[in-house]
C-alpha cells in the first residue's frame, strides 16, 4: 500500500473538508431525519449526501456557509429519495414538508446547544430510565427484543421510551432557559 503523502493536494483537500464537515454533520443528519423520519433510510441518505459533498467539494466556494451548502445537497438527496420511494414507503406530503422547511432554521440553530445539554440531563434520569435508554441506544437492542426480554408488548416499550424522551427534552429546555409555552 503506498504511503500517504501529507503534502498531496488530495490530503489537503480532505483535511479542509473534514474541518468543514465535522462540526455540522450532526445538523445535516438532523435535517435529513426530520424530513425522512426512518432511521435506516435517513442513514442511507446521509451516506449519499456525504459522498456527494466530498465529490463536489472542489465546487464549494470557500468562505461561504458550508452548512447551507451541505443542507442544500441533503435536500436534493431527500427529493431524489422521495421519488425513488414514492410507492414503497410512508413519507410526508408537500404540506408537511413546507411546514418543516419553515421551522428548519430555528431547529438547526438550537441543535448544538441542545445536544450539549442532553448529556447532563441523561445523568439526571432515574437509574431505571437510564437503563432503558442504555438498552435502546447504547446496546442498540431493538424494541421488539426489549419487549421480549420483559415479556411485554412493543407498544409499552414505545410508551416508556417516549416518556423518558419527554423528560429529557423538558430538562434540556429548563437548562437552556427556554420557555416551554406549550406545556
Amino acid at each position, binding site marked *: 500500500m503506498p504511503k500517504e503523502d501529507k503534502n498531496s493536494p488530495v490530503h489537503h483537500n480532505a483535511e479542509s473538508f473534514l474541518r468543514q464537515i465535522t462540526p455540522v454533520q450532526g445538523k445535516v*443528519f438532523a435535517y435529513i431525519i426530520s424530513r425522512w*423520519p426512518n432511521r435506516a433510510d435517513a442513514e442511507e441518505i*446521509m451516506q449519499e449526501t456525504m459522498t456527494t459533498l466530498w465529490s463536489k467539494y472542489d465546487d464549494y466556494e470557500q468562505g461561504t456557509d458550508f452548512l447551507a451548502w451541505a443542507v442544500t445537497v441533503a435536500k436534493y438527496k431527500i427529493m431524489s429519495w422521495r421519488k425513488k420511494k414514492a410507492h414503497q414507503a410512508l413519507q410526508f406530503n408537500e404540506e408537511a414538508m413546507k411546514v*418543516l422547511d419553515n*421551522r428548519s432554521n430555528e431547529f438547526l440553530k438550537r441543535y448544538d446547544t441542545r445536544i450539549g445539554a442532553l448529556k447532563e440531563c*441523561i445523568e439526571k434520569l432515574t437509574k431505571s430510565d437510564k437503563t432503558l435508554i442504555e438498552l435502546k441506544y447504547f446496546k*442498540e437492542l431493538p*424494541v421488539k427484543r426489549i419487549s*421480549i*426480554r420483559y415479556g411485554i408488548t412493543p407498544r409499552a416499550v414505545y410508551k416508556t421510551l417516549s416518556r423518558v424522551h419527554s423528560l429529557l427534552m423538558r430538562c434540556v429546555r429548563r437548562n437552556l432557559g427556554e420557555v416551554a409555552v406549550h406545556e
Partner: protein
Amino acid sequence: MNSDKRLIGELVLQALEGCISEEDFNRLQEMIIHDPAAQEYYFEFLTGYIGLIDHEKVDFETQGQSDYYSSLLNEFADYEMTAPAVEIELPTPEKAPVKMLKVEKTPRVINKFSVYSAVISTAAALIFLMLFVKIAPTTGWSVATITDSMNAQWSPSEHPTEIGDRLWNNEGTRWLLKGTIKIAFDYGAEVIIEGPAEFELDGGDEMVLHSGRLYATVPKGAAGFTVQTPYSTVIDLGTEFGVEVDFDGSTDVHMFKGKASLIPGAIGEKGDGIELTAGQAKEVTKTSQVRELGLQQNAFVRRMDSKTGFLWRGENLNLADMVGGGNGLGTGRVGSAIDPLSGQMRPTPQFDERDGTNKYALVRNCPFIDGVFVPDGEFGPVQVSSQNHYFEDCPDTGNQFYADIVNGGRVKDRRDPGIKSYTALLFNDQEYGTSRHPALLLHSNGGITFDLEAIRQLLPEAEIVSFTSLCGLTDVVRPRAAEYINRLKADFFVLVDGEVRFEHKGVRQADEPDAIKIDLDRKDRFLTLIVSDGDGGYGEDYSFFAEPVLILK
C-alpha cells in the same frame, strides 16, 4: 400538551424504527401540519434522538443495571393495562405444548451515524470512505466476563483467556478446545460452555454456537437472551436450557426450566418459533426439520466451581463419594476411608479391632463431612455434630469397632489371608461399593455426620429435598462366619440434627435391604448415619448404605 407529546414521541419512535402504521403516520403528519407546539416538539425530540444514537457524545453506565429492571417492569406493567395492541404473541402455558410463536428475527441495527464520526476523524479514513467503500463496520463493546474456568484449553490462535477477563462482542469466533468455562453476560444470563466448542458473542445478550455444547441460565430480567446455531435460533423467555450443536450444524435443544422459542432455520432467516417448555427436547436438522427428543437430564454441565473441581450435570450427590474425598459426583476414590477415631482420611481402610474414645472427631480434610464417631450410649447421649447435637437414645454398645468408614465394598479381610477373595457388598446379586453402584461401608459400631449446609454451598440455587439409600447387611460373609450367620444383627439409624428420622434395629443378613427416604428442608443442617451392633458384638457386621444420595431439585 404533555399527553400529546408522549403520543408524538411514541409515533416518531415507531416511524424511526420503520414500524409505524400508515394510519399513525398520517396522524403524526396532521399534528405536525396543524400544531406549532407539535412541530417544535417534533424537532426537539429528533435532537434528543440523534444525541442518544450518537452515543459517543453521552455516557452510559455499562454494568450493574440489572437491579433497576424491576422498576422498569412495574412501569411496563402499568402500560400493559392500557396497551391497545399486541404485536407479538408471547406463549401462554395453558395452550398445547407445541404451538407456533411469532418471534421475528430482527436485523442488527448498526449505528452508521457514529460510524461516520469515527471514519471521518482522519483524512486517510475519509478518503477510504469516499473513494472505495460504502460499508458500515460494526462497533463492539465488552458484554460479558469469564467468571470460571476449569482445565480450559483455547485454540493457539486465541488470546489467553482467564477468569475475570472481559469478552467483547466483536471478537469473532472463539475455539475452546477442551475444558469448561462459565461466562456471565452483563445483562444477567450465565452460560457454561464445554469444550470442544466454537462460539462467538454477538450483541449484548446474544451469542452464536457454531459447534459444541452450552447450558444457559437466564434470570427473568434477562429474558430474550438468544443463542443462534447454524440452523436454528433459541430465544429464551426466562429459563434454563442446554444446546448442543454437532459439527454438521444440527442442533439439540433441551429445556430444563421455563420456556423458550425455538426458530428453525439458518442465521438471518425469519421463521415461526416453536415453544419449548420444561422437560421437552427437540432436534433441528440441517434441513431445518424439527424432531422430538427425550430430555437428557445429565447431558450438560449446569453448575461449576473450579475451586472445588465441581462440575454438576444434574446428578444427585453421592455421600459415599464424599467419604472417598470427592464432591459427590464421582471425583472421590473408591476404596479410601476415614478413621472413626481421628477423623483422618486415608487411602486404604484399616481393619482391626479397636476401642472407641467416646469423642466426636472432626473430619478436617473434607468440607462436606462434619465428623465421625464410635456410637456408644452406655454413659448417655452421644454427640453427633460439631454444633452439639446429640443422639439421645443411642444404644449401649461395646464401644468397639472393627473397620474404618469406607467408600466402597471390595475390602480385603486380613483374617483370611489364605483366601484371595474380598468381602464384596452384595444385595440380591447386585454388587455395591463400585464407582457405578457406590456404597458406604459402615461396619458397626460407627457413625458419620454430613454437613448439609456445606454441601448446599456447592449448588446455592439447588435444593436438597431428600436423602435416599438402601441399607442392610451384605449377602456375602466369609465361610467361617457361616456358622453364626443367623445370629448376626445390626441396628441402623439416620438422624437429622440429632433427631432420629429412620431406625431399623435387629437387621439380619437374610433380611431384604431397607429403602430409606428422608425428606429434608433448608433448615436441616446435619445428616448422621449410624450402625451399631444389634447383637452385642460387632463381628461380621458388614453393614452398608448402598447408593446413599442427596436428591436435588
